């Protein structure tokens, strides 16, 4: 997750991958004042297969003076941990990617300032870049960070506990948290035994609701996510007379999923499909309780069986997860939102059972009685706005799935055949959105061809 938050930073700065140690590149020349003075420290490519790296530990702390050739940070690649050294002298002004977090190769992980005077500026730069450090309060930038004299070895412990007269006692974990969230412990009032500063005190000061988790790194990531959305509304102008209605749980879930979907590189492929045969079949089986949704779900499921990659999921950005079941989620609009009941094993059930199952699911959805596995186990989603007369649209890929199909209305359309003869046929436009990390254009095209063949020769659907 942490790596995702950096994706924006990367795409804007076009990483170039040098095979060896440490990338330090002068900042873009758009700001001439700081040219070549403030440098970004980049995630190095430690091996040819490395695409991202985890910061194992920062050997240096913020404010430390670095000299050329000194080890600054330890990076874990897919193969080993390596000490990474700097090519420039300077002061480590800011750490952008904290210990335990991951960043793609080429992303800025820290900021190096040439002189003390530039530290504040570098910090501002870091704050702008780092979406993962929302807790860093801007007022702190006013005070220049203490710069350790060159001879002094960086001892994190000593730095964290200054021997001040009005002695402040903080527990080890509290100190760690304070360092991480840039909280000045000496300004806190401890609530622990003997007036000591506890981890909870630091979290409160940093504006974090205490997470029950022991794992510091993990606790920090959700906090960052939770903190980022509220930032956006602040920039909107207030229009008088507007009313604020908070999201329902379902709406909040939709919002969360939609935001999450932004992290997935998607693309879309459309296809026109003649539906005369399907319409004819539908007329025949309608009386037996079969719905168009069931027909489409069945057709999609049968096509997915032949194209398992379209039914797959990319969970970690590194691998394909091939799902053994074909579970078709179908978007259902509700009064206050949207839910996607799932037709499990849609490829295995026959059309009539599928229709029956669908009816049950819709009823349950209306009564808000769907069990989690009945709406979150989908491997492929179907969304049909055709009944509203929509002729084409574009769906957002739900997290955890590889593809979603948007089905438009079937309309009489003038089509020309190979010989150039015009006819009028019923045709619908189908548009599939897919995760390009695992599903490529040709995969989708082949899948749509199969789907079209099934829809245009729908006899197999009833078998």
């Amino acid at each position, binding site marked *: 997750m942490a790596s995702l938050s950096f994706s924006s930073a990367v795409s804007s700065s076009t990483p170039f991958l040098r095979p060896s140690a440490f990338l330090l590149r002068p900042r873009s020349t758009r700001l001439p004042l700081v040219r070549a003075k403030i440098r970004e420290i980049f995630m190095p490519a430690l091996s040819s297969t490395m695409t991202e790296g985890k910061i*194992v*530990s920062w050997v240096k702390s913020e404010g430390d003076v670095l000299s050329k050739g000194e080890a600054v940070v*330890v990076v874990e690649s*897919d*193969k*080993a*941990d390596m000490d990474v050294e700097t090519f420039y002298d300077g002061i480590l002004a800011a750490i952008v990617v904290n*210990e*335990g977090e991951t960043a793609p190769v080429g992303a800025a992980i820290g900021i190096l300032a040439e002189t003390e005077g530039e530290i504040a500026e570098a910090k501002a730069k870091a704050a702008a870049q780092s979406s993962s450090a929302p807790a860093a309060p801007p007022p702190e930038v006013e005070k220049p960070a203490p710069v350790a004299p060159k001879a002094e070895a960086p*001892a994190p*412990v000593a730095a*964290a*506990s200054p*021997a001040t007269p009005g002695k402040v*006692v903080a*527990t*080890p*974990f509290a*100190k*760690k948290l304070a360092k991480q969230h840039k909280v000045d412990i000496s300004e806190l009032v401890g609530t*622990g*035994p*003997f007036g*000591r500063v506890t*981890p909870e005190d630091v979290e409160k000061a940093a504006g974090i609701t205490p997470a*029950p*988790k*022991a*794992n*510091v*790194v*993990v606790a920090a990531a959700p906090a960052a996510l939770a903190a980022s959305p509220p930032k956006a509304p602040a920039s909107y102008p207030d229009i008088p007379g507007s009313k604020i209605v908070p999201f329902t749980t379902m709406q909040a879930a939709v919002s969360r999923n939609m935001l999450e979907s932004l992290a997935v590189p998607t693309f879309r492929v459309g296809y026109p499909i003649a539906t005369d045969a399907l319409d004819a079949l539908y007329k025949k089986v309608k009386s037996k309780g079969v719905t168009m949704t069931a027909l489409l779900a069945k057709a999609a499921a049968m096509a997915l069986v032949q194209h398992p990659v379209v039914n797959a999921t990319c969970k970690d950005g590194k691998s394909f997860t091939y799902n053994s079941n074909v579970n078709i989620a179908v978007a259902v609009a509700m009064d206050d939102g949207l839910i996607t009941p799932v037709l499990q094993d849609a490829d295995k059930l026959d059309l009539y059972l599928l229709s029956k199952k669908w009816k049950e699911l819709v009823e349950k959805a209306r009564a808000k009685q769907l069990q989690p596995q009945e709406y979150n186990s989908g491997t492929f989603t179907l969304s049909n706005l055709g009944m509203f007369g929509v002729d084409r649209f574009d769906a957002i890929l739900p997290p955890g799935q590889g593809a979603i199909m948007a089905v438009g209305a079937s309309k009489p359309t003038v089509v020309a055949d190979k010989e150039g003869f015009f006819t009028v046929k019923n045709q619908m436009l189908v548009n599939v959105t897919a995760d390009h990390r695992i599903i490529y254009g040709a995969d989708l095209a082949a899948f749509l061809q199969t789907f079209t063949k099934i829809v245009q020769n729908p006899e197999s659907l009833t078998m």
Partner: protein
Amino acid sequence: MHSAISLSLSSPSPITRSSAASSTAPRSLRFCGLRREAFGAGASPDASSLRLARFNSRSQHFNLNGVLAALKGNGAPSSGGFDYDLVIIGAGVGGHGAALHAVEKGLKTAIIEGDVVGGTCVNRGCVPSKALLAVSGRMRELQNEQHMKSFGLQVAAAGYDRQKVADHANNLASKIRGNLTNSMKALGVDILTGFGTILGPQKLKFGKGDSGDKIITAKDIIVATGSVPLVPKGIEVDGKTVITSDHALKLEFVPQWIAIVGSGYIGLEFSDVYTALGSEVTFVEALDQIMPGFDPEIGKLAQRVLVNPRKIDSYTGVFASKITPAKDGKPVQIELIDAKTKEPKETLEVDAALIATGRAPFTKGLGLENINVQTQRGFVPVDERMRVIDANGKLVPHLYCIGDANGKMMLAHAASAQGISVVEQVTGNDHVLNHLSIPAACFTHPEISMVGLTEPQAREKAEKEGFEVSIAKTSFKANTKALAENEGEGMAKLIYRPDNGEILGVHIFGLHAADLIHEASNAIAMGTRIQDIKFAVHAHPTLSEVLDELFKSAKVKLSASKTVAEPVPV
């Protein structure tokens, strides 16, 4: 191996003195565990093929001894009108190992114990601490939501019952103590209760130190009295808020914040236990870095995994000059002074302090003055055969000292190995234990283990003796079994001589490292070279493949000892 077998067939006479043997014996002679020349002086690839194996000499005696033991049991002393052939003072793991081996060798054996059978290891050391670490390992796993999720497991908040955890440790200790006692009783070792005191050569008394003491004689005596936690002066141990490992293992309370003075393996293991149970830990270390004594690279990695992400901080280069237990509504106070300048630095206020600064030999009241032996900082001086040296630098005949009391290597299994070595000597087989083949382990999560030299030690030695040192490393990240367990964190490191393939040291940090080290320690003990061991097969997929890969990745330049693989017409 081949040559070793031919030896036992061709030369039936038992090996007596290694000095004699090395001049006359065939070159294929093997003595188990005797350090070869790489660690002695004047190395040459040729001489190094003189390998030692007790294997053979032992197998010759084995049948005979089995018969003897069966006939005599632990019945009559074999010679010279002594009450016993062998009397061991102290029934810890060292004394126990020696006693069992002595009976196997047909010696009439007694063991004197003034406290409880099992000594430190079983009652106040390795054994109960493993019980606590077993708990901490599981707690750690259950609390790590990320780890559980990656398995697809859902676990609700894990908790523990302190008393039951403590009971588990205590029950384990009594069970092992029972096993130890029974194993000695079954073999007929006389267990004599009381404190043993040496009265003179081959003569000692045991009892409570009053008129009821009994005097016995023995052909040979082994001192195996072990050690107690070392408490530096200025530290007031009250057993409640300022404690040693003896108290900590009872787990009478789990403080919110505990300072651990000393960051060696005892301190490190306790930090693992306490942080898993929810405490925050502060290390106080006199040296410049925590975890001294480990190979620096392993120590660095261990610090990244075992210290940095946990609720632990540390003060290095400082002594705890004064520690006052919590009282009168005040927390525990620890006064720190700079280790070099001795200037006061600061005072820590914590809920508890654990003193893990090491162990001091327990040798008082042994009657060493009766035979003119002076202890050095409490340790009994011995030579490489564990023979006690008196104040004039002369060997005291028939008196040996093993285990923590001699301070050579303060590990339970080292004591036992020393005891067995002594029994070998008193039954006529010269034997020198190779301490560099004794593995050591720290049972944190994940574990750390090592055998032989660290990299700096090996480099220093290489510098002195003029050979080359190479390093090979493998990662647990590439091991299938480790990945299946979601425990890819870790590395194994091999320090070796590229010229002859000798293993100088192996260090492992990772899942089950303590169990993995023995392939390396056995190889060192047997003198197996990398070029030979690399052909050994390891089951797939197992963690042992980490070592397999380690040996295979070593680059031995084998120009000297080429073997003819196939018959070649010449």
